[in-house]
């Protein structure tokens, strides 16, 4: 069984690389897709082709039988399982391309397109492709947050801001059961599914204090462990257990509570997954020539270390490519150039400083100053993974005006701060997604989104929480515009190549 599964993955990769010579595109897509309840065994290693090479998924501790496993079985009424939106081929996230392929393969009948959040709004005609445009074109899932926000114990939080709907293109912020005027008031925002892999890094804690909150880290009341604050875009679920319960109730429409045994199975499986790009179409293996790319190092390394302090420098996995290696003579010129570019990109990521301005979570409230000169690793600072060692709620402006690119397909909200003004936006803010503020109820948190995972990027476009960067170049271009960095064309390419290798 284990060999058959690995073989399917290999066929999918080869077929895609060969332009579909041995399998039709639809057959390849079907082999890549994991449907709820199909009963395959999840092997220790899976390789999946993508447009830039191939992704590897490792499952530490041995293969996993998925028959009856709550991560893989449809628990609720809509036929979805966790795996529906956390696909191995998409680095345990979901790419817009996979959503499109699934629509084409099933004429939109796959549980992925469940009305509850796989459509722009449940009130829309579900058979109409346009009703799922945000998922199909941007890879976005609807996330419905209660208003006012609720604390972890369910008690209401009194927010220090008001929220109004300025624009409602999906109809889910002001129609029927959805929106601020509904019997159960809510705010619908649209976000990319976050990858369920490399989680020991996202749950790791490097320090006992959260500099962004000015407080020691909170503890999980169930386990007593310090909470990393790095799981969800808005930090609404602080442990894998809480996330699984929340996801089952909402995305899976599971009307009962997960049992302790089911929770343990889900968390166990998720915690054993590691993924990263393994091969590059031009550059070859990312762990060749002395480099240490790929998921193996992720599986074997200690999480929670600060690259500039007690850990190894971020993306120093590619330092060996700064100079010709022992296999240099065997490389093609294109391979050699790509490796050198990745190595330059890693250094740029660490060393190219620029002025960071008006970004809450960086320029306030910790006292770094506004502006502050630093590089990408100021926030992307954890060795091997590039997430924030501290809880990573930062406002890059991707969802909030005036920094956000135009997003006419998304709702637009007007926030009015009732007490202190926002440290950078003032008293009135226009945002497509208030982010962390929908969890805390604090005006100062509007626009803050937890840092994204940086591994397996090539497998899961588009990028940013709202999918506004269609490709990796779009990510670099956004940063360049936002902070007036002035990257050269070569520097942009180097950073893109670095991210292709992650």
């Amino acid at each position, binding site marked *: 069984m284990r060999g058959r599964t690995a073989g399917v993955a290999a066929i999918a990769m080869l077929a895609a690389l060969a332009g579909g010579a041995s399998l039709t595109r639809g057959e390849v897509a079907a082999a890549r897709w994991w449907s709820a309840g199909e009963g395959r065994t999840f092997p220790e290693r899976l390789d999946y082709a993508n447009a830039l090479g191939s992704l590897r998924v490792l499952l530490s501790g041995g293969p996993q039988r998925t028959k009856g496993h709550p991560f893989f079985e449809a628990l609720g009424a809509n036929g979805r399982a966790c795996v529906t939106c956390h696909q191995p081929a998409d680095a345990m996230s979901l790419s817009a391309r996979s959503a499109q392929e699934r629509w084409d393969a099933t004429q939109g009948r796959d549980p992925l397109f469940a009305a509850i959040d796989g459509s722009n709004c449940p009130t829309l005609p579900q058979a109409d492709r346009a009703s799922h445009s945000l998922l199909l074109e941007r890879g976005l899932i609807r996330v419905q947050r209660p208003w006012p926000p609720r604390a972890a114990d369910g008690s209401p939080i009194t927010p220090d801001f008001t929220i109004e709907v300025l624009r409602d293109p999906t109809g889910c912020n002001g129609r029927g059961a959805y929106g601020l005027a509904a019997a159960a008031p809510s705010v619908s925002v649209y976000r990319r599914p976050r990858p369920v892999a490399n989680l020991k890094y996202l749950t790791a804690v*490097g320090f*006992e*204090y959260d500099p962004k909150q000015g407080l020691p*880290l909170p503890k999980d009341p169930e386990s007593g462990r310090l909470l990393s604050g790095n799981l969800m875009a808005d930090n609404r679920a602080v442990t894998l257990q809480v996330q699984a319960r929340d996801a089952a109730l909402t995305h899976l429409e599971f009307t009962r509570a997960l049992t302790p045994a089911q929770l343990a199975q889900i968390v166990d499986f998720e915690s054993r997954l590691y993924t990263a790009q393994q091969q590059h179409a031009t550059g070859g293996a990312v762990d060749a020539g002395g480099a240490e790319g790929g998921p193996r190092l992720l599986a074997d390394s200690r999480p929670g270390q600060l690259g500039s302090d007690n850990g190894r420098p971020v993306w120093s996995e590619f330092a060996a490519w700064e100079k010709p290696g022992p296999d240099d003579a065997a490389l093609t010129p294109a391979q050699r150039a790509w490796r050198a570019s990745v190595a330059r990109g890693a250094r740029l990521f660490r060393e190219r400083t620029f002025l960071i301005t008006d970004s809450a979570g960086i320029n306030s409230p910790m006292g770094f*100053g*506004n502006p502050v*000169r630093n590089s990408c690793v100021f926030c992307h600072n954890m060795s091997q993974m590039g997430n924030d060692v501290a809880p990573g709620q930062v406002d890059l402006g991707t969802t909030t005006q005036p920094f956000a690119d135009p997003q006419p397909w998304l709702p637009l909200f007007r926030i009015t701060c009732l007490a202190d003004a926002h440290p950078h936006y003032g008293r009135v803010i226009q945002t497509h997604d208030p982010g962390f503020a929908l969890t805390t109820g604090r005006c100062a948190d509007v626009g803050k989104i937890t840092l994204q995972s940086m591994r397996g990027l090539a497998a899961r476009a588009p990028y940013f929480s709202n999918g506004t960067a269609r490709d990796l170049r779009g990510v670099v271009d956004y940063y360049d515009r936002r902070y007036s960095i002035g990257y050269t064309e070569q520097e942009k390419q180097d950073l893109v190549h670095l991210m292709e290798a992650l």
Partner: protein
Amino acid sequence: MRRLRALRAGATLLACSAVLPAAAAEPLRFIACPVYRDVDAGRKSGCWLAEDAATGLRYDVSPSPTKPDWNHEVLVEGSVATAQDNACGGVVLDPVRVSILPGSCTRHSLPAEGFPGRRFVLPPRNVRPLSEARKPPAGPWTDRSFHLQFEWDRSFAVYQLDDYLLDQAITYIRAVKPREIVVTGYAATVPAVVSGRRIAERTQVARERAEMVGESLLRLGVPKSILTVQWRDAAEPAPIDAADGLAEASRRRVDIDVKLP
């Protein structure tokens, strides 16, 4: 008069990069719109300058644990440093505290203009990772007080200052297992005139500071049953290390009094 002499000395030393006499270390206090000088000596290397309207002298306030926001006024409290390196183009204040005020400023940035700035050096008061074991405090143990110091009218724990001091406190508390811990928050509510403006902290910020530290200690494992949280306004200066000898800054503090069985 003595202050004026110190300022003149500072201005002179800016040119000659010599060492100031000890008498020059008298604290200054003024409100200004900050100016950012965009030097590039690596991460966190930008310079912050602020001009005292009373003298027209420009000071380098970069050594403050908290830096300015170029959109807002700052309250500057500091002493002219005994060593002047002229790295940023202003008389260096060190020790110095910068507090961001609500008043707006027109953001302004200067080019480096040949000033080198300073490479960032991790401050000595920085919290170490959890992976580094804390050294248990040596005995004999006694009742002991710890102090945190705050920005003007704020209760936010200053990064790489208050978190370090809190870490010192909890390391001691974990070792000695006290019978009682008293947290007292203070606020400088008695009005003072600074740069021609009458300023005073909010009375409630004393409570906010005390409650923030109380919550911090609870999160760090202090039993609620041994914790008392109280607050006082009209704070007097106190000789606390956290304020580095700056009397006005020392009014804005929290005391953590650890009492042994």
